[in-house]
């Protein structure tokens, strides 16, 4: 109980620090300018390009006009939106915590009067701000070149709802990466776990194949997980395939996941620190 009170007492201080941490992360991220721009531009783009070619081949060879209510153009629109959304989702390289644990770099934060979670959310703020801009630039560029053919959000409300889900969902992604990184306190196979999660999450989120095209049983499971509500559901909201009731359900799923993951992240971090030896110092 007293720990909870201490946490609450330090909250204003941590919030005060957030923008400074974000600004530091921004300076760090832009230290290598060319790499930074390239990464912001290319993130999320190669996959939809490849998938478009795959769908093209499928429609050509089967001669079908649509698959489960999705025409070829619908699928391409779906891919365009997943590309924009993927730009905003942290990937396993957004955190170097496992490396810091292995190499003993976490040490310096442990003697500072700041919570590691503040550093985490500061980085998240910076990343999200930059990638939102990159996603907007991507969409505008497409709209300029391809005009009315480029997908538009069905309504401003749908856009706001999609953005809300995305914000919460990316937080869930970050926490999951954080927890997996924390396993470096115990394991030395964190990279493979992160890669596995990346792949499974890509499937669950509908980035590989729209969840609507999957068997009913799979859909049922995915619809209570955060990757689905972070990517696939916002895209369908933007396409007008989901409505306000779905949005409310998704919001509940994401909020629950977020709280649960945050709790788990907190516990993993505390337990891990008890095992931390700060090797190599």
């Amino acid at each position, binding site marked *: 109980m007293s720990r909870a009170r201490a946490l609450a007492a330090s909250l204003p201080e941590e919030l005060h620090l957030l923008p400074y941490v974000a600004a530091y992360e921004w300076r760090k991220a832009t230290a290598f300018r060319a790499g930074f721009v390239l990464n912001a531009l290319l993130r999320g783009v190669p996959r939809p390009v490849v998938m478009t070619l795959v769908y093209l081949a499928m429609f050509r060879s089967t001669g079908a006009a649509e698959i489960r209510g999705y025409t070829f153009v619908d699928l391409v629109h779906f891919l365009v939106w997943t590309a924009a959304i993927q730009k905003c989702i942290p990937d396993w390289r957004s955190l170097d915590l496992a490396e810091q644990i292995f190499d003993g770099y976490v*040490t*310096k934060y*442990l*003697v*500072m009067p700041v919570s590691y979670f503040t550093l985490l959310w500061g980085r998240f703020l910076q990343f999200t701000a930059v990638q939102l801009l990159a996603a907007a630039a991507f969409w505008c560029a497409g709209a300029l070149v391809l005009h009315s053919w480029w997908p538009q959000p069905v309504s401003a409300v749908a856009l706001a709802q999609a953005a809300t889900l995305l914000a919460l969902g990316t937080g869930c992604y970050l926490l999951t990466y954080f927890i997996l990184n924390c396993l470096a306190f115990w394991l030395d196979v964190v990279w493979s776990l992160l890669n596995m999660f990346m792949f499974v999450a890509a499937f669950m989120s509908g980035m590989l194949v729209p969840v609507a095209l999957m068997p009913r049983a799979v859909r049922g499971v995915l619809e209570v997980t955060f990757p689905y509500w972070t990517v696939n559901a916002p895209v369908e909201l933007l396409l007008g395939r989901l409505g306000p009731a779905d949005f409310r359900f998704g919001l509940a799923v994401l909020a629950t996941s977020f709280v649960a993951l945050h709790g788990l992240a907190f516990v993993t971090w505390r337990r891990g620190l008890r095992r931390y030896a700060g090797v*190599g*110092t």
Partner: protein
Amino acid sequence: MSIHPSILECRSVGKVYSAQVRGAGTLGILRGFVRRQVREHVALANIDLAVAPGEIVGLIGANGAGKTTLVKCLTGIIPASSGRCELFGHDAFALTRADKRRLSLVMGQRSQLWWDIPAIDSFRLLREIYQVDAARFERRVREQAERLDVTDRLQVQLRQLSLGERMKMEIIGAFLHDPEVVFLDEPTIGLDLLSQETIRTFLREVNRERRTTVILTSHDMADIEETCDRLVILEAGRILFDGDLVGLRRRFVGRRAVEVHLEANSRPWSAELDGELERFGAVLVREAPRALTFEVDAEHCQPFIQHLFDLFQVRDLAVERQPLENLIREIFRTGELVEAS
């Protein structure tokens, strides 16, 4: 004297690391899969230590003696396996945010600043984290950078600085929030002599001006000898000696080894020269054809060397401090172990 005179205290502190042992080669690795072999390593055993505010303590020991481990236990980075470590009267592994504001840690082999940005930007972030008043911050950075002679390097990305410059930045960062205790773990490792000297002078001055408690570890006796008032010698995880450096300095530490190499036409060493040594309190410790090693008190070193040039045709001459091993051997020999005192 207050009731709690110590700012930090260790009572029977022990630390045991357990590490998985892997056999050599593929077979060894496979065997490790089947049966995990864990070896326990005692890094610290039964450490008792108390440091009063304003002290400047040198913690010395060979590589692997447990210096870093002790610093980590004292700063709350790792928990002690047994005994109790206290900092500011609280369990060191459960320091509050307020406690953390009162301490600082510099690690010679790990940067505390951020690698990708200039030092001044790191300092600004530290200013927010430690909530240092803006005017005081500016003044302190300027002052300390001048003292350490790195004013023109503040804007350079940390990774582009030399090792010595980087370490000076680390030290500026560590003192920004005016901590009550500063731990420095081998801060002079790998630095050139001039940088080492600058850093030692800086530490002494800050300790004197602000009464900052300084715990300095090193495996180089020169660091401790020139900086500290009190010496703690760690050997294989135990405290071998803990005491005043002043007394020790006279007897062991302040001795210099002078090695002279003689020209072919120089007079050789002979017993009748013994009297010449006595005047300086020097002793001949090693004699080889055309190479002599003497031991002499540091304060008599200079006139003694001058006299050597009068006595011999000197080709080459080297003056060295007593290495740590000699000191430890000497302490063992004279029975001045901490248990005895």
